[in-house]
């Protein structure tokens, strides 16, 4: 009878399920540990001051430490700079990435598409510092004649591209052909098919890719060291150096007296990522 085989199949099924659950729990273990670390070491520093003020200098930090007080100041310049450069990078990368993803989807198997796809995948593996170097050569020297937010944004946008391209293409590929064909059969012009049918249907996947890429660049330090350099003040001039939260974290780490600030700054950065996640999930829920 089949019962013997059924038992084995069911057993395999249950073992697999348990394994999946165990592994999934293991997956979130690090995040719990890291968040615990960040919160326990960093929460006491978080206040409105922390968001609105600029960092102290090393002496102020030293005196505060020796008096047993909280280090004064905050990371306002970093928050402003990060938002500024991330928005600029997104403005460059999202349109290019999504449109290229659509191109790849529409031209499966064609040589240009294959080349672009391969190149995009390779770009993914380029270390962020090399991208910083490229932006240094292309923007810092010839265009802005100095370290600048623009250079920082450009290096970040190159980092975003591969992820957006790939997730767009793969998402669109999962949409049943019938939907697209139905629209075309009705005589809908091509661009409308893209804008009104494909993109909305694949919106969730597209947004995931975009979100992943923004999450990644929010925390990047190495390229910004060579491009945006950092600044002790809030700056919105794209041709001048600007700070960013990860840069500040690096500066704090390297300063003997301000090391303790790394945890609270990281906590704030994570809060930004979390908010981004929540907002986009809301958007996706709405469009569904």
């Amino acid at each position, binding site marked *: 009878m089949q019962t013997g085989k059924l038992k084995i*199949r069911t057993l395999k*099924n249950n073992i697999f*399920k348990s394994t*999946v659950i165990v*592994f*999934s729990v*293991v*997956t*979130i273990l*690090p995040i719990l540990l890291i968040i615990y*670390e960040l919160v326990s070491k960093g929460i006491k520093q978080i206040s409105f001051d922390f968001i609105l003020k600029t960092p102290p200098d090393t002496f102020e930090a030293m005196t505060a430490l020796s008096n047993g007080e909280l280090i004064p100041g905050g990371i306002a310049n970093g928050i402003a700079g990060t938002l500024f450069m991330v928005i600029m990078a997104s403005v460059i990368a999202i*349109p*290019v990435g999504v*449109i*290229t993803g659509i*191109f790849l989807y529409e*031209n499966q198997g064609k040589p*240009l598409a294959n*080349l*672009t796809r*391969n*190149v*995009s*995948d*390779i*770009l*993914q*593996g*380029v*270390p*962020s*510092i*090399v991208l910083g*170097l*490229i932006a240094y*050569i*292309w923007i810092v020297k010839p265009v802005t004649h100095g370290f600048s937010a623009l250079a920082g944004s450009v290096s970040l946008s190159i980092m975003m591209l*591969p*992820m957006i391209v790939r*997730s767009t293409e*793969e998402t669109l*590929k*999962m949409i049943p052909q019938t939907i697209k064909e139905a629209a075309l059969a009705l005589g809908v*012009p*091509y*661009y409308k098919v893209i804008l009104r049918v494909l993109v909305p249907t694949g919106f969730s*996947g597209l947004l995931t890719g975009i979100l*992943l890429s923004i*999450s990644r660049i*929010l*925390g990047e330090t190495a390229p910004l060291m060579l491009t945006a350099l950092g600044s002790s003040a809030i700056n919105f001039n794209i041709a001048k150096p600007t700070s960013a939260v*990860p840069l500040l*974290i690096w500066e704090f*780490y390297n300063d003997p007296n301000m090391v303790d600030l*790394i945890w609270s700054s*990281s906590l704030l*950065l*994570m809060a930004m990522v*979390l908010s981004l*996640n929540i907002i986009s999930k809301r958007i996706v829920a709405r469009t569904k």
Partner: protein
Amino acid sequence: MNTDKITKAVLQFSSLIILLVAGGMIFSLVEGAVPAFKEFGFKFIFSNNWNPTEGKENFGALPFIAGTLITSVTALLISLPLSFSASLFLSEYYRRTRMAKVLGMMVDLLAGIPSIVYGLWGFYVLRPVLIDLGLPNQGFGIFTASIILAIMIIPYATSLSNEIISMVPNELKEGAYSLGATKLEVITHVIVPSARSGIVAGYILSFGRAHGETMAVTMLIGNANIIPNGLFSTGNTMASVIANQFGEAEGLKLSSLIAIGLLLFLITGIINTIGKFIIKKMA
């Protein structure tokens, strides 16, 4: 139709941008790397020597190539079962439940942690644990770096696989279930084949990410410019040595570092191509 032509042109133009960017990058890197290759020839790629002392300079890329490959592969192997399980958890087993929402959010958070924070956490928290477990070299090394890398790349593969698996049409799955298939069988025979390309794309993305990771690795790998002689040995990766030495580099050393950047580009390309070839064979 006219608009169709314009649309096609816009699509093509956009992909050309990416090609131009990549091409420009290779050009700039080659330009910067030429002095190093002139000085050392192609031996540079296979040379084990890295002596930055002024006057006795001799640079070779082999230790870093080895380090990069070993850490990335190890990281991918560690993260594969974890991220695959997590994506199945989210998209199949507990789909649309509270638990899935929470798990999903936690995994997404992993992606949002700056690489510097991973490095710091690894340095201050993970390392002491590993030292207690008996790891040599003060907890620095390939193994430590690979663990951190694995954690870092989990969200990429998970999120993407999750999305892709969710998009497998329900009818296919229902059909299999109605034939009496167990969940495991539906996964292996329906979902994975149908979503294979997307899942693999997720892993290629993860692998690329591991390759290029700079800050976290550089803080944990021990920065020994040697070919690693064991899983727990110290070593160095291409991205890490560039990050470490770039600030002070000039002249021949700078050129050697740029050459390493170029090599990283090429190696990523080769590995990607091999990977895709294997996948085609599997299809």
